[in-house]
């Protein structure tokens, strides 16, 4: 496909999104428009996939196509560029977009104010489609802010509830802070000459100080959007507040766009990276992963739990990216390529299974009307199709073979093993610690998703809402089934997506092409994932998938031959004392209690308060569990207090006499003149 055709398609996609947004404004009056608008949004995403997939699959790594549009700031214009990295993130965004739009057909069929969702929804997709192709700071930030503002409007969909309004306020504040940090980063990189195109930044060799400042600003700006601790505080508030298919997009796609900014910035725009940026990012990533997984385990709201788990996975990706940067700074391009491939693959996989799980949580919400885990139970009998699909998502995110989550975590772990060979002692010691943190995060996530699936879908219904739940619309099931199928396929054949991802990674860490060997063995990539030659271990998703299936089949076959094959139904055994009340089951809080007590009592200051009445007293026993997020307690609450006090002081300036204002201005002028004089 020629470059012109690609840009024509991308332009068409954006035009469609604008038209769809205008159409979305009218859905309050004509609700019949909802289904066709969502269908067209899915079609637009599908068209958006075409140039992206074309760049990713057909062409080799170096293929880049550019376009300069004569709009935007004078002298700068708008520069667009489509390379492998941009194409990959376009695929992630649009895959999520298709699933979310198809799901929306059923999910929003009976919403009271559909325009609140349907007007910003296409703009959100447009923003996420613009950021990866932007090739100058101006266009990039336009796309970035479009994405932020549109998603902010979507978070406000349920603004009748005070919690959602607070979530939106926190989100908007953090988004503004993030954009400001990005602005600083681009400003520092553009330098006094004002080279705001990314091409100019790639050519310029910033001094180490400027590069470090820009890297830290990028880490703050993109990291806050992605949800790296301690800047993650908005994420578990805002992501669940939006409608479920938008939550899926925010967690699955928007956080990935933020990671795209981090990758583009740290690997391309800031010149040669320094090793400690990577070390810092790897440690932050490991801590974020463990903290997110632990907090996910303590939440009793289905969607909040999923939002914390997003933080965990962002931590995993950031850790792999950090290792890639450290390797690159040490000149080990082969290892850098493997670590970056791991980061990209986990980003792709997370966008699939997290979208699937959010859509599943939406199905539970749609079917039962509640997000409270402790009111659910037994949904495997009511949501017959949703349950196995969500189970696939839970297994994928728990990083067990043969699903795709394991394949990418396996690559991350191989990179951690590589990192023990780094030259710097700090990195050598950080490697096993980061590895242990990531392993802890994976195991906590497994516990968290046993808890999520076990409480919501298994057991007996704890509430009428769960007992009378209804299966969701076919379009919602179709969206979930598509994502689940991709999770299974990428788990069994990780070599297929990896063939493209390694090219993207290689182009990024090794633009001059001096790599000493291939990242993955090309001949057997269909069967096994084999990292570069220095590590000899391989992983075969296909053997894992077929092996488990075949051996399970053999066992089922043999047992059905030797045993009668019949079963008898009876009451539950429960050690001889089954209690008919479903309240005697383990709850979400009790299931997480051991891990909450072991890890949470220190990290989250988790406290369980139990009030038992004296023997014979009729009043009920009470239980309360309190937690606090260390980021709120140690960073944001003091910061908010500081800002509040400062604004109260400054408030005095509003009520002064005019002569005082005049003397203040005069003093400011004198002060500036003195500074100028001294600086000269």
């Amino acid at each position, binding site marked *: 496909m020629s470059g012109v055709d690609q840009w024509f398609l991308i332009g068409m996609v954006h035009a469609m999104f604008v038209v769809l947004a205008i159409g979305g404004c009218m859905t309050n009056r004509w609700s019949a428009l909802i289904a066709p608008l969502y269908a067209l949004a899915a079609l637009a995403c599908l068209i958006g996939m075409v140039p992206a997939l074309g760049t990713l699959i057909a062409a080799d790594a170096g293929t880049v196509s550019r376009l300069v549009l004569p709009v935007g700031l004078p002298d700068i214009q708008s520069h667009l560029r489509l390379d492998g990295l941009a194409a990959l993130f376009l695929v992630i965004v649009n895959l999520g977009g298709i699933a979310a739009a198809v799901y929306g057909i059923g999910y929003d069929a009976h919403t009271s104010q559909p325009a609140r969702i349907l007007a910003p929804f296409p703009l959100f997709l447009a923003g996420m489609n613009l950021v990866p192709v932007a090739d100058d700071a101006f266009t990039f930030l336009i796309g970035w802010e479009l994405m932020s503002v549109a998603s902010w409007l979507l978070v406000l969909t349920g603004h009748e509830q005070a919690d959602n309004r607070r979530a939106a306020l926190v989100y908007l504040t953090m988004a503004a802070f993030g954009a400001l940090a990005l602005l600083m980063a681009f400003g520092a990189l553009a330098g006094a000459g004002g080279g705001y195109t990314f091409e100019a930044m790639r050519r310029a060799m910033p001094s180490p100080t400027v590069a470090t400042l820009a890297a830290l600003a990028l880490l703050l700006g993109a990291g806050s959007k992605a949800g790296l601790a301690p800047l993650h505080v908005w994420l578990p508030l805002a992501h669940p507040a939006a409608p479920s298919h938008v939550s899926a997009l925010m967690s699955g796609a928007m956080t990935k766009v933020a990671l795209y900014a981090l990758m583009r910035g740290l690997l391309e725009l800031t010149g040669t990276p320094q090793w400690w940026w990577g070390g810092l990012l790897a440690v932050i990533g490991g801590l974020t992963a463990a903290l997110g997984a632990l907090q996910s385990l303590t939440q009793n709201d289905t969607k909040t739990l999923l939002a914390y788990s997003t933080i965990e996975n962002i931590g995993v990706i950031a850790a792999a990216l950090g290792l890639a940067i450290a390797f690159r700074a040490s000149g080990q391009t082969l290892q850098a390529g493997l670590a970056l491939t791991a980061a990209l693959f986990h980003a792709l996989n997370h966008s699939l299974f997290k979208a699937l799980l959010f859509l599943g949580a939406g199905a539970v919400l749609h079917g039962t009307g509640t997000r409270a885990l402790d009111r659910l139970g037994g949904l*495997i*009998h009511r949501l017959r199709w949703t349950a196995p699909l969500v189970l696939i998502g839970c*297994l994928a995110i*728990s990083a*067990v*073979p043969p699903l795709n989550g394991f394949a990418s975590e396996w690559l991350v*772990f*191989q990179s*951690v093993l590589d990192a*023990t060979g780094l030259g710097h002692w700090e990195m*050598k010691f950080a490697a*096993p*610690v980061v*590895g*242990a943190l*990531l*392993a*802890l995060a994976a*195991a906590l996530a*497994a*516990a968290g*998703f*046993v808890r999520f699936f*076990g409480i919501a879908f*298994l*057991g007996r219904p704890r509430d009428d809402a769960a007992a009378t739940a209804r299966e969701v619309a076919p379009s919602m099931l179709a969206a979930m089934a598509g994502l689940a199928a991709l999770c299974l396929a990428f788990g069994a054949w990780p070599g297929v997506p990896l063939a493209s991802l390694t090219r993207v990674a290689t182009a990024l860490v090794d633009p001059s092409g001096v790599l000493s060997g291939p990242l993955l063995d090309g001949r057997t990539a269909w069967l*096994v994932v084999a990292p570069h030659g*220095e*590590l*000899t*271990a*391989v992983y*075969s998703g296909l*053997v*894992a998938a077929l*092996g*488990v299936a*075949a*051996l*399970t*089949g*053999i*066992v089922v076959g043999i047992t059905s031959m*030797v*045993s*009668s094959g019949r*079963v*008898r*139904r*009876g*009451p539950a*055994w*429960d*050690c001889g004392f089954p*209690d008919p009340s479903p309240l005697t089951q*383990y709850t979400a809080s*009790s*299931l997480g209690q*051991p891990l909450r007590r*072991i890890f949470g009592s220190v990290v989250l200051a988790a406290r369980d308060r139990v009030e038992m009445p004296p023997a014979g007293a009729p009043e009920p026993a009470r239980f309360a569990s309190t937690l606090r997020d260390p980021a709120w307690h140690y960073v944001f609450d003091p910061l908010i207090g500081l800002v509040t006090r400062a604004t109260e002081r400054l408030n005095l300036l509003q009520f002064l006499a005019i002569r005082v204002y005049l003397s203040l201005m005069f003093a400011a002028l004198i002060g500036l003149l003195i500074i100028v004089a001294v600086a000269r």
Partner: protein
Amino acid sequence: MTALVIFIVQLLAPVALAPLLTGFVRKIKARLLGRRGPPLLQPYRDLARLLRKEPVLAHNASWLFRGAPYGAFGAVWLAMTAIPIFTTSSLNLGLDLIAIAGLLGLARILIALAGMDVGTSFGGIGASREMTIGALAEPAMFVAIIALAIIANSTALPDMSRAMGDGVGLRVSLALALGAIVMIAIAETGRIPVDNPATHLELTMVHEAMVLEYSGRHLAMIELGAMLKLTLYLSLIACIFAPWGIARDAEASVLAAGLGLWLAKLAIGGLALAVFETAIAKMRVFRYPEFLGAALLFGILGVVFLYISQHLK
């Protein structure tokens, strides 16, 4: 042809011998306690009896409850097949030590979910504790893998076994890694002091509480899976830390010797386990972090000592 025979032996021998190992451990424990104990072949009879019996399912048991024992057994069996028990020249399955840990994680998740399916409090308590032990053991396991992978430069078990067999000398870090993996193995196979496979006292159960609702052929699969897991961990430790006699080429006599030595290693491991279990008391649930934290510490110390020895070289 030889490769096929080796593969079939790799596939079937552990499953066939796992009940014998469990019977052996039970027999030794009974003898140490001054009892005569059940016959060595008793586990086979128990399994045959369970297979014949009709399972009783709770009214609200779902498809997951019926399928989980088979799926979990399949995962453990595949993990077992990926461990070179008597030869490193077997079929390369493309499953390394991390994948083996992952497959065991899959089995654990399936059984924990099945434990919660009927909706009894015992199932919940078992699932909760089992996942807690997993969350504590996994970081320790991974750090131990790092220590071993630095020595062997690979996470694939045949490579590790060969590297250890070539003689890496007596190393402090190896001893530490061995300590870590033994502690993890004790926790993961549900042995004393972490869990007691013989207990039926409600509040001390972990694994037994999860599978309380099972009966008939489903219970047989779970029991056999637990026995296979014990064989798996003993074989894993033997293959890394006692790689003597593991055949490198496909010569019949060497293979037979390797097979015989594997049986001997299992017997020694089983003996050590029985003695250890008899000598020690089960610990409280909230002492697990200390136990597995020590395993993590051993792993990290192992890695650090490796760095130092590499630096001094």
